[in-house]
């Protein structure tokens, strides 16, 4: 669980946060509602999760609320991994 959290967090920091941004991202940082990840960019995050964990996330699951923190993202992925 924590390993998955680290992987997802690392991907988000690498792809969506610039080095000199004054933003600290942790497992519970709001991503969508804070504007760090916008709703269009959610799609590339969804694709990352699907490829990395070999799952398929439906549009009804991939909501801004479900993608709003690393913790909620990992919960969603774990549902699919059983």
């Amino acid at each position, binding site marked *: 669980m924590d390993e998955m959290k680290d992987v997802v967090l690392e991907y988000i920091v690498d792809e969506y946060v610039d080095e000199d941004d004054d933003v600290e991202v942790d497992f519970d940082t709001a991503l969508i509602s804070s504007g*760090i990840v916008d709703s269009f960019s959610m799609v590339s995050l969804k694709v990352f999760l699907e490829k990395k964990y070999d799952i398929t996330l439906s549009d009804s699951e991939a909501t801004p609320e479900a993608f709003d923190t690393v913790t909620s993202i990992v919960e969603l992925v774990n549902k699919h991994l059983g």
Partner: protein
Amino acid sequence: MSNIGSYEERLKGFDWGIAKEVLGWEDGELLNIGHICSDRVCTRGQTDKVALIWEGFGGKKHTYTFDDLRVYSNGFAKFLRDQGLETGDRICIFMDKIPSLYFSFLGILKMGGIAQPLFSAFGDESLEVRLESAGTAAILTTRKHVKKVRKILDKLPELKHVIVVEGDESKLKGEEIFFDVEAAPRVEEFDAYEATPATPSVLHYTSGTTGQPKGAQHVHSSIWGQALTTSWVLDLRDDDIYWCTADPGWVTGTSYGIIGPWSLGVTQCVLDSGFTCARWYQFIQDNRITVWYSAPTAIRSLMRDGIEPVKAHDLSSLRHLASVGEPLNAEAVIWSEEVFGLPFLDTFWQTETGAMMISNYPGMPIKPGSMGKPFPGIEAAVLDLKTHEPIEEPGRVGLIAFRPGWPAMFRAYRNKPDIYRSKFAGAPEGAEPDELCTNTDLWYVSGDRASIDADGYYWFVGRDDDVINTGGHLVGPFEIESALVEHEAIAEAAAVGKPDKVNMEVVKAFVSLKPGFEPSGDLELSIMNFIRKKLSPLAMPQEIEYMEKLPKTRSGKILRRYLRALEWGEDVGDLSTLEDD
């Protein structure tokens, strides 16, 4: 009773002069949008009235009066003048929806500059193309976004000033200037530039099928159209609390997120944080919003979340809803009537038209899914696709067109007179933009298709070109394709719109790979993120299909329309010109 009263009655003997009555305008007053939206509201006795309720992420909230608007826009106007910027200079605003965006927009207009707002999610390449095309003299931005400017600064010799309006001053680099208008000395007096009706005001970039985006130039007299449509379609009144969800990087965010409401002295709200249903409903509840102007993509996202979040909030303050950006489907209209007790009224217009052209009006019977009827004073038609003659037959599809001459009409595409001319059916060869925009024998052809029913209601059909309308924003395939082939793995590329339940269309890319590269999930993600950072999240392909070879004509042109037709399940048309394998 609504402001418009009876739509049918308003059509009789309509004259645009009524806009001046709505504004309480007297002959001899100073024409300048920046002045009208701030100083003038104060001189009409509304100095202490709240102009802007702003909320950001993390509970940040600020309220500004019309006097604050006046003083802070003065502050920007004086500061820009002090930097040596002059009348007619293009000054870009590149920031999130922070208060300084709104103050600087009015300040630029007050000092006679041309405001060039750009969507802050644009990547460095999208930014460069638009700044280069405009010959932009200065850019106002924030510490978060200045990094994109730094990357392209060397390629923009005309860009003389990079001004950072927020953040940590100590982190600035090179010749960047810091200016925090709220911390600077208050500027009580500034003599606003006296514009003529044809003085350029706002430059908005819009995408086309071919070539790079074009700068649609608007003028100060646009305010007559923007104020009147705000009054009659959005039905704004003195005691309303209004929320336009659009970003001023796009035309809705300036015409109806700044000019329309503030010219009428109406309080408006701005939410500068990411979209979640709960956050939006909370914002409406907290601020007792009465009139809400949003977009079909957002409405469909709210629909997807269902009625429970609606029930969890007190939204009883809402009295009028409207929508813009792409056609509003009938289901969304019916849903909003069920859950809010009010239908979203669809409005149709474009960057080029500057103001609403075809709308549903308060009090007029609504046909869910219809665009409504032309605004009074707008002569509209659908033209035959080949002859460009108006179609009289109900239900037959043609091109939506308007007679030139409405107040908010764009007056040029910056440095592109030939493309401007091509937008007018019947334009004489070599005619200049000034002649075209007043020639009421011509038709301005919008690029959208529709039909008109027997009752005079317009029904949207789709674009007449390959431009992709995603979430209400137009994205040009050429721009995406040009960026795609800059990716190390891509040999050739085509970008088309594919149907999407929420965004109407999203970008799909077809690519063939260079030798040595193989299709893979990692490559797909790499291409997506490459475009997202280079252009914008809107332009990012949401699907990538690998092809050995893209379909082309015998002359070697990629058959984008063929690929689009496949996505939409449409007839692919005549393939006789398809390149043989």
